[in-house]
């Protein structure tokens, strides 16, 4: 079917879309790279001289950088761990036939529809607030000191909030994967003498591996750039205890008005994302091969 002529026509027709997409990606990237080599601070109007790698040097030697890097990885890793394990268990639960299944499934998915800022504010003010929060009330009810989540364990609290948001996504994908498991395979395993736990680990978990890979890859993309939850809960603090790379870039370019330094941070974030992506594809990418 694909003659020389039709191939040429096809290329011509997809060209506009490809060109627009390329511009969409290339222009901001090139501008960011360009800005990252300038001394470009909005508080110092006038020249924007070329300074080479100076911005990168500042960014890497910033005492907050290492913390932010570690925080970013902890945030991604922590949320992935909670959502994958919790999602699998929830999916297992929701896969059981029960009364009101449809309603329960809908409710489980609900957190995903709540905007990040809103859910973070709800968590901050209604649950984790050490005076008025629900957790504080519960703590007082059983007679223990309320725990000030966001002040004492800011990063863990943010991980909890973000994991709560992403749990439905993982659950949903893993649930559909679980439902596509051939029931005869489970029965065969049952005949073969596998107990419930063995069936779960030898049959269900391998079957879920592909779906889990998709969940991990998609979530990683979004989790590397978590921002709203940090802004509305801790604003990166106390100190820089809950600052991740995205938030650090925000501090430098928008709070300190340093476009050059912010751009350098952005480029570092892109590189980090790619390193994480390479590792992920190495580790779990083979699951996606048919």
């Amino acid at each position: 079917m694909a003659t020389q002529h039709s191939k040429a026509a096809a290329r011509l027709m997809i060209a506009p879309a490809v060109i627009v997409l390329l511009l969409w990606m290339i222009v901001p990237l090139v501008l960011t790279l360009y800005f990252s080599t300038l001394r470009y601070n909005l508080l110092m109007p006038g020249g924007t001289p070329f300074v080479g790698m100076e911005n990168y040097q500042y960014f890497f030697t910033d005492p907050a950088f290492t913390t932010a890097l570690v925080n970013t990885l902890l945030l991604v890793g922590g949320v992935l761990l909670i959502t994958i394990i919790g999602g699998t268990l929830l999916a297992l639960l929701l896969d059981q036939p029960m009364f009101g299944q449809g309603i329960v499934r809908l409710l489980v998915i609900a957190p995903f529809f709540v905007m990040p800022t809103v859910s973070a504010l709800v968590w901050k003010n209604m649950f984790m607030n050490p005076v008025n929060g629900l957790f504080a009330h519960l703590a007082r009810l059983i007679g223990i000191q309320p725990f000030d989540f966001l002040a004492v364990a800011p990063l863990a609290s943010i991980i909890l909030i973000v994991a709560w948001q992403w749990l439905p996504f993982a659950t949903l994908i893993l649930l559909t994967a679980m439902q596509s498991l051939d029931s005869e395979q489970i029965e065969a395993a049952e005949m073969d003498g596998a107990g419930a736990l063995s069936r779960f680990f030898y049959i269900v978990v391998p079957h879920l591996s592909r779906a889990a890979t998709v969940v991990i890859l998609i979530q990683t993309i979004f989790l590397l750039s978590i921002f709203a939850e940090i802004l509305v809960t801790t604003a990166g603090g106390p100190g820089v205890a809950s600052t991740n790379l995205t938030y650090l870039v925000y501090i430098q370019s928008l709070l300190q008005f340093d476009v050059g330094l912010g751009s350098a941070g952005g480029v570092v974030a892109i590189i980090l994302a790619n390193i994480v992506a390479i590792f992920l594809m190495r580790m779990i990418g083979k699951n996606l091969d048919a």
Partner: protein
Amino acid sequence: MGRITLENVQKSFGDVEVIPPLDLTIEDGEFVVFVGPSGCGKSTLLRLIAGLEDVSGGEIRIDGKPATDLPPAKRGLAMVFQSYALYPHMSVRKNIAFPMKMAKVPEDEQKRRIESAAHALNLTDYLDRRPGQLSGGQRQRVAIGRAIVREPAAFLFDEPLSNLDAALRVGMRLEISELHTRLATTMVYVTHDQVEAMTMADKIVVLRAGHIEQVGSPLELYRSPRNLFVAGFIGSPKMNLIDGPEAARRGAHTIGIRPEHIDVSTEEGVWHGTIGVAEHLGSDTFFHVHETGLAETVTIRADGEIGLHHGDRVYLTPHPDKIHRFDEGGLLIA
């Protein structure tokens, strides 16, 4: 050892009774085939024996020991599923080893049994492949291998050949029969294909709507079907069933005569008609004869090279001793 006894076994799904109480004994070493049209409850019956479904009433015994409440794994039975149900993420070797791993069989014993099963089933070259890389017939053999290594009291087959093409089906049929001769283990086999039932079984159980219509050896069922349903179901092509005056003349409501028990001639005979379709198989020829005044079509089997064709006028003579007579309720008149 593998003697399976069903006493008053009954199964309902909600209000729907799928299997009314039935009794059945499967002797040790027997090859028993459950056959019937789709939806007759034959698979359900097999799953009851396997323990994959709970009985609603009655008692199942395996080797005399009550097994009604035992979980599937404890019954000592192995099952081959219609979809083969191989574990796609495991190699053939691991698939076959899985039941032994679950039973905590020692490593070297596992290895020995895998080797011998692979050898017996021609799988030696494929042990390290995944099921996805195998053909249908090979997957089928892996599924059988996985059943063999457990050294079960009985094998249960749930329509194992229905996903294979015709040529492979004939081959696998032979292989399963040979396996049965070699192992001399009880086998229970479910199929809707009466040819499979006839060729493989020691004992056929014909089922309809959960009822056992007749139990017997293939030739018993062929020679003396107890009722119209069995008469029509066993045998290929189907028995000709004729009612009306011709049946009444012989003191029956319906008479049945198999295609191979009617002689065809161009000169004389009891009945006459016109050949509609002629199916030339080489060894045999099947004629569908119309306008006989007996039934819409009368099928007859004739010699492969008889030289009659569409539109020819023929005379038919049934073998008088091969005519089956049935009463109004469809039961055989002895």
